[in-house]
């Protein structure tokens, strides 16, 4: 394999492996938030803002993987 092939493979692996845990994390978080809203609809706005913040933190990990993949691809 040449350098170019290894780069393509590395990019694919970074995206594939790096997005597993954020996907699971956001899934769990959203399901818990839905549950909480179902139990206590009055607190929906409060839960929503906190959920969006937490999703942003979790999603950041996927974004790091994306940035690394983009750097491998374009730099």
């Amino acid at each position, binding site marked *: 394999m040449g350098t170019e092939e290894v780069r393509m493979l590395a990019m694919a692996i970074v995206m594939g492996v790096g997005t597993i845990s954020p996907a699971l994390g956001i899934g769990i978080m959203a399901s818990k938030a839905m549950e909480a809203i179902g139990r*206590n609809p*009055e*607190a929906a*706005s*409060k839960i929503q*803002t906190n959920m*969006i*913040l937490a999703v*942003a933190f979790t*999603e*950041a990990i996927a*974004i*790091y993987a*994306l*940035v690394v993949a*983009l*750097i491998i691809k*374009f*730099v």
Partner: protein
Amino acid sequence: MHISLVAEKIFEIGSFTVTNSLLASVITSLLLILASVFINKALKKSPGKMQSVIEMIIDWLDELAQSVGGKDTRAFLPLVITFFIFILLSNWLGLLPGFGSIGLYEIEEGHKVFVPLFRGATADLNTTLALALVSVFSVQFYGISKNKLKYLTRFFNFGSPIMFFTGLLELISEFSKIISFSFRLFGNVFAGEVLIAVITSLIPVIVPLPFFGLEIFVGLIQALVFAMLTLVFINIGLQIHGGETHENVSHELAREEVEHGN
């Protein structure tokens, strides 16, 4: 398909390089300054349509901030809302037709390279890094102006070995905040641009539309997230000691509300 990780050079003033994203961010700033001047001039006691809409938005943001940090947030809310509006506007400007499609052909290393005249301001790591630095420094600024030298006990606490260690971790996390702030915004916006470029190159009509809708949504959420995180971090910085009581009070209120609701 034209994708470039870094912003391209348009022209130089002396040794200062003007990139296409710098151009876009200057335009964003100019738009905001002009809008604020005109809106400020047109302010009335009895609001018209435009003023009512803006008052509603500001009211909503104020309520959101107060639900997070209480009355103290009034002092730094202008900064947070400015972050929100600036990032929102530059995210959405980057989606306009003309951004990334109008440009010049330049000769680089022997072959023609297309250089777009504008590039979304937040699709450049320099812009987001600057925003992140302002955000993290304002956290320190408001923390020190409220708690004076006591603020430093957050990082250097010789009370006990455990407190010393958590202080060090706090110090490191301040730096990782800069990285995560800048890369989160840059990554989201740049990924959106790549996504739209790829989809448009595959099927240029109708199909990209839902992706533009997605990008408008992502732009709003990322602006909101940046502003909210700044708000939360400043709020944490304000409450070094005696913050627990404040926290308890808000929890108490929330519990009462919930019980009342039931």
